């Protein structure tokens, strides 16, 4: 998995690519953990290039969502591919983390 971090105004964007699974989830948890120590107001995960996610990856997203909520921040996902969207819907994560089809919508919701 690759993680690239950029900023759009005061919204942080982490773009993930490859596979977010039991092997790679700890790396994302560490990177987000560093950012969450001093979080900005908004965080978007751009999943356009993410090919796959398992429960280990979703666990990191859930913990991130809980921490952003506790920090009064906004957190959402953008551009889920077919396999990632499948896992997102089966797990019921659509009830807890917002997802948008475009980066424009995701950024607008995070400001």
């Amino acid at each position, binding site marked *: 998995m690759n993680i690239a971090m950029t900023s759009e105004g005061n919204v942080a964007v982490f773009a993930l690519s490859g596979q977010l699974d039991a092997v790679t989830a700890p790396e994302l948890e560490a990177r987000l953990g560093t950012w969450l120590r001093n979080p900005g107001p908004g965080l978007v995960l751009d999943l356009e290039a993410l090919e796959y996610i398992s429960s280990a990856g979703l666990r990191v997203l859930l913990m991130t969502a809980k921490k952003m909520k506790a920090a009064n921040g906004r957190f959402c996902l953008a551009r889920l591919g*077919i396999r990632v969207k499948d896992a997102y819907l089966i797990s*019921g994560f659509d009830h807890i983390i917002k997802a948008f089809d475009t980066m424009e919508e995701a950024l607008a919701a995070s400001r």
Partner: protein
Amino acid sequence: MEGLHELLEFVDAGARASGFSEQARGRIRLASEEALVNVILHAYHGAEGPVEVGWEMTGEPALEIVIRDQGADFDPLKAEKPDTKAGLEERKVGGLGIFFIREVTNRIHYRRESRENVLTLVFFP
């Protein structure tokens, strides 16, 4: 978790050879990963141990994946189901792996065979 990707590539090769769609292959990989991670975490409690993975396309036709380990007695089918309707604050972390296996697999079978856990996952094309 070392070796997990290699095992998953092996399973995916089976799914590809059996003609499953892109989305179905994602689900087969998902169930297989969750089952293997459970073996590592629950049967071996995070320690090293042998895991055997095999697949075959049966005459049904169906892709049958068999996972064997020699760890502690662990029946994933007895696990509690997570509340997938819960909101962010109520939603508990964990329990999702076994839920995924149940949701995406057409048929699951667990048995304890002498000193092995044997989990069979069946997918219809």
